[in-house]
């Protein structure tokens, strides 16, 4: 694969020139938004914001699954671990606090919490320990929901249930584009999530909002091309759905993965921590698989919308791209990667954690 071409400094310089030319044509201040933690990493790591003209701004939207997992779900997982069940989850998820404790703190209190790399590890651990109840705390977007659907369809061991908090990205992009206090002109859409759903999942959003959209890959050249494509649309006053990540994203997406998801989950309303309840953005295990669903097996209720962050923390506004991490009074003071107070400082996909890892202490926002 010729991925090194996607880090070509000569092409990067040319793209920067193109972006400058387009920005000058537009003249006005333009806010673009991406909705994926991996895009934030690329943009921050390669210093892409420092290359942009003064009137072009790229903000990080809600693209971190750990960050938007409701506190009530984390609380539920922590309680289950303290009741003597083994709770299995991803590393990042174990460090995000619910309303009082994180899963790793629950573990310190005697709860059985284990870190897994994939849902398949959870299946194998449960199978190897048939006498214990296991709960897989399943978080993520449509990138991780299909593997869980696959495992549920393979008949997992009876001592394993799934506490799901999956969220579906397209309705969230639509919700953010309708947000009245943030005038986003174009979206850099998440390449990995779109590789599953296909571009077609965003057609409704595009038709309703007429905001420019480019489906983008994760190398620095991918991001620069995507910004140039968005600015070209804006300069021509011709919003479209365009695909930059043609090597992985198609109009229809991964049909096999979609079929597995649709067999196992119903699409329901989903609460995004710090954001809102977004219609059609949640996944609920269908009733025919109720024996795999932690909530129905143990008679637990779906989490309701209450955002619980630490006082003064502005995680919710960071998640929505309304502010940048240094605008939060806790950022790199009380809240650091070693002492995270909120989920955006915990997850590798959280904006605060990414900025902190790159030692960014001041705002990168253009002020005009």
């Amino acid at each position, binding site marked *: *694969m*010729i*991925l090194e*071409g*996607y880090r*070509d400094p000569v*092409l990067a310089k*040319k*793209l920067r*020139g*193109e972006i400058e030319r387009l920005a000058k044509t537009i003249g006005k201040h333009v806010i673009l938004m991406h909705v994926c933690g991996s895009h934030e990493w690329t943009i921050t790591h390669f210093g892409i914001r420092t290359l942009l003209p003064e009137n072009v701004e790229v903000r990080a939207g809600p693209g971190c699954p750990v960050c938007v997992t409701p506190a009530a779900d984390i609380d539920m997982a922590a309680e289950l671990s303290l009741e003597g069940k083994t709770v299995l989850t*991803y590393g990042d998820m174990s460090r995000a606090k619910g309303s009082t404790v994180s899963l790793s703190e629950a573990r310190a209190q005697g709860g059985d919490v284990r870190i897994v*790399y*994939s*849902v*398949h*590890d959870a299946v194998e651990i449960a199978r190897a320990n048939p006498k214990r109840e296991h709960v897989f705390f399943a978080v*993520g977007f449509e*990138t*991780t929901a*299909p*593997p869980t659907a*696959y495992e549920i369809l393979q008949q997992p061991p009876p001592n394993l249930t799934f506490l799901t908090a999956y969220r579906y990205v397209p309705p969230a992009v639509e919700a953010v584009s309708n947000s009245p206090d943030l005038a986003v002109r174009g979206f850099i859409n998440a390449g*990995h999530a779109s*590789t*599953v759903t296909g*571009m077609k999942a965003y*057609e409704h959003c*595009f038709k309703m909002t007429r905001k420019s959209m480019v489906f983008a890959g994760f190398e620095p*050249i991918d991001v620069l*091309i995507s910004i140039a494509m968005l600015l070209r649309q804006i300069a021509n006053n*011709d919003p*479209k*759905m*365009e*695909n*930059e990540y*043609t*090597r*992985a994203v198609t109009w229809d997406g*991964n049909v*096999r*993965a979609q079929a*597995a998801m649709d067999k196992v989950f119903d699409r329901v309303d989903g609460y995004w921590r710090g954001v809102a309840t977004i219609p059609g953005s949640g996944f609920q295990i269908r009733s025919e698989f109720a024996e795999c669903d932690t909530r129905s097996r143990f008679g637990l209720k779906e989490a309701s919308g209450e955002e619980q962050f630490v006082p003064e923390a502005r995680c919710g506004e960071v998640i929505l791209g309304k502010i940048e991490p240094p605008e939060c009074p806790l950022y790199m003071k009380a809240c650091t990667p070693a002492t995270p107070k909120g989920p955006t400082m915990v997850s590798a996909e959280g904006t605060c954690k990414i900025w902190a890892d790159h030692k960014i202490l001041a705002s990168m926002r253009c002020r005009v």
Partner: protein
Amino acid sequence: MKLDGDFASVDFGEGTIRDGVNVSLVPAQIGNYVLVHAGYAIQIVDDAEARKTLEYWRQILTADPENRASYEQQLIGGLG
């Protein structure tokens, strides 16, 4: 690299080879590039498309202004 039912060994480059990558969600064949997310391949990556994107942009950004419009026409896909 190696394919056994739902599982494959995948070469991640730089000396990393992982066994047991679940490829049941994609019609993967030996020699394909796959996008792996938390242990599961979620898409096959098209090498020819990767080259095409770079080629188009290199051409557009070095083209004479009069040729440029025709190159841009070739690039634009998606839904207007």
